[in-house]
C-alpha cells in the first residue's frame, strides 16, 4: 500500500487514489489528420516497463486532482510526483 504525496493534499494512503495509466501521451490536436495506424498508436499502445515508468494518478477520494508520478515498477519506489502540465524531473 503506497503512501502517495498528493501535490495538493500531502501524504495520503493509496486507497484514496486511482491509477490512470501512462503519462505524457497528449491527445492529438487534429485526430482527423491521422492515419488509422497513427490513431491506433495513440489509442491503444501503452508501455509496460519493468523499471522507471511515468504514470498518471488521480486523487479520486480526495481533491480529485490528476497529477503525474514517476514510479519504479520493479520495487514500487515513487521517485517523483509533479502536477499536470509540469515537466517531468530529469532522471
Amino acid at each position, binding site marked *: 500500500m503506497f*503512501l502517495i504525496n498528493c501535490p495538493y493534499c500531502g501524504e495520503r494512503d493509496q486507497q484514496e487514489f486511482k491509477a490512470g495509466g501512462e503519462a505524457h501521451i497528449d*491527445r492529438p490536436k*487534429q*485526430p482527423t489528420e491521422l492515419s488509422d495506424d497513427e*490513431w491506433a498508436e495513440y489509442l491503444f499502445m501503452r508501455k509496460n516497463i519493468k523499471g522507471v515508468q511515468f504514470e498518471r494518478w488521480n486523487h479520486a477520494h480526495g481533491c480529485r486532482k490528476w497529477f503525474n508520478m514517476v514510479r519504479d515498477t520493479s*520495487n514500487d519506489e515513487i521517485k517523483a510526483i509533479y502536477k499536470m502540465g509540469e515537466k517531468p524531473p530529469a532522471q
Partner: protein
Amino acid sequence: MTKNLRLKSSEYIDETNRISFKFNGKTYHGFKGDTLASALLANNVHLVGRSFKYHRPRGIMTSGSEEPNAIVQINPGTNRTEPNVRATEVEIYEGLEATSQNCWPSVEFDIGGINNFLSPFFPAGFYYKTFMWPASFWEKYEFFIRHSAGLGKSPTSSDPDIYDHRNIHCDVLVVGAGISGILAAKNAAKNNFKTLLVDEKNELGGSTVYENNEFNKIDNKTPSEWLKKEIEELKNIKNLEIKTRTSVAAYHQYNYLLAKENLTDHLEAKDKTNKIRQRLLKIRAKKVILATGALERPLIFNNNDRPGIMLSSAVKKYSEFYGVACGFKNVFFTNNDSAYESALSLYNKGINVEAIVDIRDQSESKIVKKIEEAGIKIYWSHTIVDTAGYKRLNSVSIMKLSNDSTSVTGSKISISCDCLGVAGGWTPAVHLYTQSGSKLKFDQEKQIFLPNQNTSEQISVGSCDGDFKIDEIIKNLNQKLKDSLNIKETDLDKIKVEIDQENSKRNIWLLPSDKPLGKTKSFVDYQNDATAKDIKLALREGFRSIEHVKRYTTTGMGTDQGKLGNMHALGIIADTAGVKMGELGTTTFRPPYTPLTFGTIVGRNVGKFFDIFRRTPMNDWHVENKAEFENVGQWKRAWYYPIDGETMHQAVQRESKAARESAGILDASTLGKIDIQGSDASEFLNRVYTNAWSKLAIGKCRYGLMLNEDGMVYDDGVTTRLGENHYLMTTTTGGAANVLGKLEDYLQTEWPELDVYLTSVTDHYATASLCGPNSKKILKKIIPDLDLSDENFPHMSFKETNIGSIQCRIMRISFTGEHSYEINVQASYGKDLWKKCIDAGQEFNITPYGTETMHLLRAEKGFIIVGQDTDGTMTPIDLQMDWIVSKKKYDFIGKRSLYRSDTMREDRKQLVGLLTDDPNIVLEEGAQIVSELNQSPVEMLGHVTSSYFSPNLNKSIALAVVRGGKEMMGKKLFVPMENKNINVTVANPVFYDEKNERLNA
C-alpha cells in the same frame, strides 16, 4: 498413565488460580498463565493430533506460533468455534474446550493411520499425479480427500463477536518485545519518537526473560533478572505504547503493516460478550524496527516426528517459563550448545536427563563442561538413526557418524526416553523483512539467510539479524539505533555483558541412518508430511527451482508456511544438486505471518455495513407502499409495486398499461446529475457529446450520447441549458461517478485552457418523473400558475418555477414516449413532492411504477439502456443512431475512432428489433441468435439484449444485437433454446408510436 509434570516455582503461572478445561472430551486442570500446550504437557499429554497425509500421531513440537503439529479446534460445536488454532498460542480459561483435528474416530485410534503403512503409494506429487486424470473422476477423488483429510470445521452459525479496525501512525514501530525490541523501543521513546511496541505473546521479554543461564551476566545480573527490571521501567516512559497479544501479519511497502490485536480470546465465555474480540491495526510507521527473533530448527533424522520429540528451546521454555517438564526421561539431540541450556534447566530442577547426543566432536563452552561435571552422558559425533514408540516416544537409537558424516558406523545404542529435545540451530525470523520487499543474503559462515538490502525505512535488530549472543545483540543494536534514529547517546552505552564463550556449530541438513533413505521417514515439513525422500524424489524427477519443489512436495505450504523446515528443504536440495545454499534463493514468505480470522479482516463491514447503499428521498413511501427493490449500483431502486399478491409480471403489465393509458410516476432521483458552469461550457459539451451543443437555446433540453475515445458508447442522458454559461447534465444511474471522473480527466489533463467547472449534484435533487396522457392535468393541479401549453412549454424544454414556496426545475422530457415531466426539487422536499403528485393524480388513477416498467416502456419505444443494450463494443452507428453523430463538428471524444476500418465494417453487430412469430413467447435476455438450424458448428449472429411482453402491443418484443442486422429487416432468424427453437423476425426497434405522436398527446 497420567502423572503430573508440573514443577514448582514459575512466576508466570498463578497456582492459586486453577483452571479446568476439556481436551478431546476429557477434563484436565491447568493454571492461569498456561497455554493449552503447557497445560496438556503438565498432564503428560503429548499426542494431540494426526498428520495430514499419513495420519501419523503427532505431539506438541514448539512453544510458539511456529507450531506445525498441535493444531486444534477450539470450542467445537459452538458459534465461537475456530479451527486450525495452535495449542501453543491458546491461553487457557475456565470452560475452554478443544479437540484434535484430522483424526477419525479419535486421535488415539485413527482410521487414516493406515495411510502410514500405505505410504509407498503416497509419494511426492501424489496429488498431482493421481487426482489430475481422468478429469471426470474428480468428484470421486474429492469425496475421498475431503473425508480423509480434516483441517477442522468452520462454524455453521454467525459469529457473535465484534471486530474492529484501527489506524495507527507512529514514528517508530518495534515488532517483537524480546530483549532487542524492548531496548530499541525504550531508547526510541526516550528520544521523543512516538513509539509502538508490539508482541504476539501476552508477556514481554521473549526468551531472555527466562534466561537464567549462570554463565551469562548483564550488569552482574542474570539476563532474566536484568530484563525484568528493564520491562518494569517501560511503564514510566512517555511516547511509548505497548500492545501485547498483537501479531504483525503483514508488512507491506511504504512501512504499512497489518497487525492483529487479540483482546478477548483468553477470557471466559461470560467475559467475552459485548467486547471487541480482535482488532486489525493498520499501522503506518516512519521507521520499523524488526526484532522478530529467531526460530529454532529441528534436525532431520529418521522418524523425527513422534509425540515426545520437541524443539530443545521449547523444552526449556516449558521448564523455565511454565514450570512444566516435558518428560520424565529426557534426551537431547543437538548440533550446537543451546540444547545444553535446556538440559541444565531440567537438571537444576531435578528432572532426569538421560543423555545428550551431539553431532559435533566437541565443545569448549562452560555450559558443556557443567553438564559433563553433572555426570550427564554426552555422545559426541553421534546421530539418532531411529526412534521408537507409536503414540509416544519410548526410545532413540544412536550410532556414530562416519568421518564424512554421510553414513553411520559402529554399533547401535538404544536409549530409553519419553522426551527428546532437538536443537538444530537458529533461523532468523526474516518473514516480515522479506514481505516488505527487502532482500536477503545467505551467510555461508553462519549458514543462515540474513537481511541484506533494505527497501524501506527499517532496521533488523537482534537475532533476526543474526546476532544470537547478548553481547553482540547489545553492541550492534546500540550502533543501529544511533545510526537509524540519529541519536548520540543511549542506555546501552554503559551496559556490561559477560557471556559464555563462542559456540561451535555443525550443520548437516539431512542426518544419515543405518537404513537406506527409501526406508526412512525423515520429516522436513511436519504439517504437510513432506519428507527428505520426497524432496529428493522431486529433484530426481527434474524439478530444480525451489518454488517448484515446494509446490510439488507441498513443503512449506501448510498454515505454518514451513517455519521449521524451510532451511532444511533448501539445504537438502543444495546438497543433492551440488550447489551452494545461497545460489538457490529462498522461497517467498507471504502474508499473513500467522493466520488471521475472517472477522479481523472484515472488521465492522458486516451485515448492512458490508457495502454502502443509497436511498432516494422518496424511499419511505416506496417501502410503505410495498415496493420490491432492486440494486442499481449502490442505489436501492423501487423495482415494481405489487398489489394484492400480484406476481412481478402481473404488476409490471398493470403499471405499463396505466402509464400509457392515464398517468404513471417514477422515482428518477438516482439519475446522475452534473452541474456544469463556465464560459466554455458549450464548447466543452461539444467536445464530449457526439452532437452539436452551441446552438441549444437557454431553457431547452437535448439528448446526448457520450463515447469513449475508442468510439464505443459510454453513457447517455439529457442535458439542459439553464443559462448562458450554465448546464445541468444527467447521466445514467450507474455511470454517474465514472462520467464525472472522465470529464474531470479531460478538463484537467487535455483541455486545461477551458473555463469549465463540474459539480456533482446527484444527491442534491429529488426527481419525480410524471408521464402519460393525463400528466399535464396533474401538473396543472400542482402548479396552477404555470402555462403548460405546447407553445410555452414544449417537449424538450425547461422551466424554473415554484410549487408553493418550494423552488423546482421541470424538464419536459420523456423516456417512455409519453407526454412527461421530470420535476426536480431540493432533495429534502422529495417525499413531499412525490406525495403531492400522488394526491393530485388520484382522480386519474396515477400509478407508481418501478424500474422494470420503465425498462419495458422504453423498450417499446426502442430507446437503448447503456450497459444493457450496449456492452462497450457498440458505436452509435451500430445502434442505428447515426442521427446523433454530428458530421460537421471537427472533433469530439471518439470521433476519429468511428472512421477506423474496424468500426466501419458492415458486418458489425448492430441493434435491431426482434419479434417472435408466436407473440406469446418472450425471449430470454442473453439468448443466442442464429440463421441456420442444421449447421454444426452453428454461427452465432448475436444475442437478445432486452425482452418483454408488451401489454400495450399485446405481444412479445425484444431488442437484439445481430451481425449485419441493419440489412436484415424482415429476415427470419432462430433463437435455439434447450428444448425448442424459437422463430423470430428482424424488425424496426421502435415498436410503439413510431411517429412520436404521443409526446404531445
